[in-house]
């Protein structure tokens, strides 16, 4: 293990390390702590200039419920769910099928070029897609609808998901598939009964990652959505920022609410999340 385990060094170094840890963490998360403190203080504090000091009173419930009663934060949150969940299901499902095709058929000559197509597409800048995708949405009457956003996100995320899924399936023992074929099991049955149960960890990893990516998307929400009642929470927070001018306690409460679902997702599914981010490079 590198660096050398701290247990091997002198007692004073060990104490120093244990003191340094929480200090470093507080400095690292200072922006978050500050916004949390802002979100629980009364408006009076901010007007009188007490922005980073101790709050004069704690208004956690008042501020957070005010976000919902004085703005459309509830609608924005719901819209985000309506965009995120279907996207998650569609892109992971398509990637399972495509990843299987690209990993299992050894004689399939197009496997590598098509795989690279998915990989490359996943990295292109959004702006090169913006005008045609917006135009396509207008022409298919999906502009300014949740459906339009779901369709685009699903298609785009399929690239990343296929990259991940293909590599995961490729690492499975190929003999399993071969022996099933010799037994005469149909191709779809091999996929459904043999491979799909084995890729469950990959499905979990992709689900949490896609959830986070889509929940945090801002660019497409501004390009493809116009109507206030269809905005997802990221674009909604910006709208709130304009609405709650200088009512920082409310803006920060809304921001923290917007950040909450991905944070919860990360804490609940940490192992899968990290496996996904490192493109499955984790071992234990």
């Amino acid at each position, binding site marked *: *293990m590198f660096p050398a385990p701290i247990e091997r060094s002198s007692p004073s170094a060990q104490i120093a390390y244990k003191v340094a840890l929480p200090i470093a963490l507080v400095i690292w998360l200072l*922006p978050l702590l500050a916004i949390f403190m802002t979100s629980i203080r009364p408006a009076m504090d901010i007007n009188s200039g007490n922005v980073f000091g101790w709050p004069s009173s704690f208004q956690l419930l008042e501020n957070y419920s005010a976000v919902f009663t004085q703005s459309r934060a509830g609608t924005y949150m719901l819209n985000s769910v309506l965009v995120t969940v279907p996207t998650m299901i569609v892109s992971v499902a398509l990637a399972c099928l495509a990843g299987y095709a*690209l990993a299992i058929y050894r004689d399939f000559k197009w496997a590598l070029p098509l795989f690279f197509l998915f990989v490359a597409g996943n990295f292109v800048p959004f702006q090169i897609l913006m005008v045609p995708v917006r135009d396509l949405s207008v022409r298919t009457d999906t502009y300014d609808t949740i459906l339009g956003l779901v369709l685009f996100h699903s298609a785009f995320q399929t690239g990343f998901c296929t990259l991940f899924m293909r590599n995961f399936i490729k690492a499975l023992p190929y003999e399993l598939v071969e022996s099933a074929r010799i037994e*005469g099991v149909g*191709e779809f049955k091999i996929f459904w009964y043999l491979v799909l149960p084995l890729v469950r960890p990959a499905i979990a990893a992709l689900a949490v990652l896609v959830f986070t990516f889509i929940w945090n998307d801002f660019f497409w929400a501004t*390009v493809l959505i116009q109507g206030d009642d269809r905005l997802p929470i990221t674009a909604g*927070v910006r709208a709130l920022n304009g609405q709650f001018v200088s009512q920082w306690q409310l803006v920060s409460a809304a921001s923290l609410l917007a950040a909450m679902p991905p944070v919860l997702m990360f804490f609940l599914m940490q192992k899968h999340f990290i496996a996904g*981010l490192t493109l499955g490079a984790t071992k234990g």
Partner: protein
Amino acid sequence: MSDATTHPGSTVVKASSYGWFHRNRIKLAPWLFLAPALIFFAIYVVIPIFQSIWISFYEWNGLDNADGSSSAVWVGLRHYFDLLDDDRFYTSLKNNVLWLVLFMLAVPIGLGIALFLNQTVTGIRIYKSLFFFPFVISQVVVGLIFSWFYNPNFGIVGQVWEFFGAVPPAILADEDLVTYGIIFAGLWPQIAYCMILYLTGLNNVAPDQIEAGRLDGAKGWKMLWYVVLPQLWPATFLAIVVTVIGALRSFDMIAIMTQGGPYGSSNVLSYYMYETALSEYGYRYGYGSAIAVVLFAIMMIFISFFLWKMWRDERGS
């Protein structure tokens, strides 16, 4: 084996009697499995890339004529020549380079934090997850947080400056400082990402090699440079890739913090493209697409390199 053919009821015999589709199923099956993903991906990703390149040769405001035909007018390479004389384009390009260079700091800093946290004291798992926090949060929220931080009247920056008796700078309103301010905010989540890549990488470093290095008297920087870093190369490569992509994709923070201002001084190509194509003074799809094509070309250099490396790895295995 031949065993199967001797039994009339066995599946192999059945299979051969199904006809053309069944005989070719091994050839057809991959296409059937791929079809949904491929069609979807083609419609929303692959074809739009070529359409954008095509649109960049037109002057178009996105509208149709009354008779339903497109109002786009062919202008050939004119947009690209216009870009050469466009100061805002050069500012954006310069800022993109700045982003690319300074964003790279996320890789060594991420490594530093990963080394700091790679211990086994109690509660370290919680510390690791909390250090990763900034990456999970949407960039919109990060942008908002740092906008307040930089506010000269209320923000922490202002308070620190006042503590030293100095007049606080208005970072986001200063043409020379604004881009650095946004990049600094952008580094926060990016460092967290690089850190997690390195923490995973450090987990996979072979312990026997470390011990062997220790026996040879290597420690500290020498150990890091000659024994650990070479083994961390996959993590480093991935960290560089995601950081380059992240730097060139930067959009959310600029949209939230400055909208490219003041006077376009914090613009980058991605935001300049958006601003031009969906401008308040009439959409300029053609010119916007030309900017997008330039950004795409820059990105393609990195993507090609990445694909080339993957291709080499694939052939190796």
